[in-house]
């Protein structure tokens, strides 16, 4: 079995592997074969790519573990995690609510040890002058509130951890 790479687009995983290199490059995406006749170098930002005889003009760039692409007046963000990074990420567990933007805490609507239901607003944060609700993704009990009112935090900071009701 050839090595397969996993990419995420619009929340869905896609498996890509190499079927053949010669005479033409043939790739498999989720089991379907595609012929690639013009393939760019990895560091090119503006690429011309021909897939199954159709040519695409694409702009692309990396940002962390994401590749941003623009094609046909649409912008896409494709996630790529290599195996080591993926292992680290998932060890953190699913019950930690992290900040997906940097900001400051405006209000806290939960307390440690308290019961919350999925959809409850646990915290309101502010980023770039906009208020964003931090919402419980499941029913459970609040374990720790890591940041207090008026405290600022960076992107990715743990805001609240919770666990399932026992």
């Amino acid at each position, binding site marked *: *079995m*050839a*090595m397969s*790479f996993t*990419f995420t*687009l*619009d929340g869905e995983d*896609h498996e*890509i592997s*190499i*079927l*053949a*290199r*010669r005479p033409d*490059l043939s*790739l*498999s*995406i989720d089991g*379907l074969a*595609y012929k690639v006749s013009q*393939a*760019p*170098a*990895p560091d090119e*930002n503006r*690429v011309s*790519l021909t*897939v*199954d005889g*159709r040519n*695409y003009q*694409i*702009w*692309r*760039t*990396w*940002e962390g573990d994401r*590749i*941003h*692409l*623009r*094609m*046909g*007046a*649409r*912008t*896409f*963000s*494709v996630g*790529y995690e*290599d195996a080591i990074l993926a292992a680290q990420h998932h060890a953190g567990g699913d019950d930690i609510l992290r900040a*997906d*933007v*940097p900001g400051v805490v*405006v209000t806290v609507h939960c307390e440690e040890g308290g019961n919350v239901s999925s959809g409850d607003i646990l915290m309101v944060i502010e*980023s*770039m*002058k*906009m208020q*964003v609700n931090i919402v419980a993704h499941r029913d459970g009990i609040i374990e720790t509130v890591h940041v207090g009112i008026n405290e600022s935090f960076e992107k990715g900071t743990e805001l609240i951890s919770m666990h399932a009701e026992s």
Partner: protein
Amino acid sequence: MFASVLIANRGEIACRVERTARALGLRTIAVFHHEDRNAPHVAMADEAHLLQAEVPIAAYLDIEQIIGIAKAADAQCIHPGYGFLAENAAFAEAVEGAGLTFVGPQPDVIRLMGDKIRSREFAEKLGVPVAPSVQQDDDLDAFVVAATQIGFPLLIKAAAGGGGKGMSIVRSANEFAERARIATGEAERYFADGRIYAERYVERPRHIEVQVLGDGNGAVIHLFERECSVQRRFQKIIEESPAAALDRELRDRICAAAVDLAVNSKYRNAGTVEFILAPDGEFYFLEMNTRLQVEHPVTEIVCGVDLVEAQLRIAAAEGLPWQQGDIRQSGHAIECRICCEEPQNDFHPATGTAQILRLPDAESARFDGGISEGQVITAAFDSMVGKLVCKGKDREDAIDASLRALDDLILLGVSTNVDYLGSILQHPAFRAGELHTGFVEEHATSLSPAPLDEADRAAVLIAAALAVDEFHKLVYDTPEPYASMSAWRN
């Protein structure tokens, strides 16, 4: 005319002011926080001075430091741009007190118009229509009772407010008290003034505003209207001039009301009088913004004027550069605000690096930007990084020009609303001019991106995969025997 100007701002508006000031022969003096040291407004200026502040936003609000720099750099006037100190009467006073000219209105006019309750009363006295409203005094219960008498839905607003802060639509009496409490808290936090009021919320309102210029002695002209009905989170994202299919007679009455307000306040500077227009054709005074507006370029394009030049000439006591009869609207202009945010994630602000920035070069397109390639977009400032303004011979033509220009605008490395703006402009309801401030909520479903077809999705994924070094190496760098082997190993 002045010999020099200090621009007490950053981003696109600082660049915008510098362009005109330079063209008029003024020496341009920029100020910046350390985080903005590589920003275009710094590079473009004749000289730039560092503002010391731990919090970046505080730098541009530091009256004492800014005036100190202005004096040391021998600036003759200070242009505040919009936001930050633009509508701060104490700043205007301090500038004048230091013997410099403030490019803006008289401090007492800033105070009057900055107080939403007082300015409403001022408009009402002049016979300019305002929506029925009630103010909160100390007694919350009495406020609830009085508000209920106006009838729901109601809009709660902060007296010192702006930018959607402290605002909420309340549809029933039982949620009113809680919303009022939240709004008071927000108003205190943002504006250090907890006063709020509630006014009748007009369903499906359009936002129509009028650009005015006043000389400070009662001479006022208007430069017609702008429509800013397409908003998200109470903030405009697409503006245009003229308004879409606005009856001429009604347009003239709205412009006349705006001029009335400016004449009677002896308004000096460029200013904008905002109205809401109900579906039944009634219009109500909303507020007056005593500064250059973000969306001023659409007026500049259709009227063929430079509003920053007008501001500087008025501040230099040269009087109004034009008479009412000189001002004509010609063609149509649309502005799209380019913001770093995630439209599909409730417009959450996004941060990142503008790794690739390519601007449209069509003659019909003007990009007022404040970022350069490689610049880091942080949460420290507003998410708007530029404005794409396009002109056409009519509305349809301006929409098409805007769509082409949005296609040509490449800003990669941070999430933006560029695609989303395109989907609004393409929407049949937008093309038909069926606008109201709830447009993006009403059409939320049809504004979501259409699913990708399978071939396009493959192209995107392959382009992404080939950007991964390990993957690319497997494709091209594998030694010969293995390279041909793996072809049939699968």
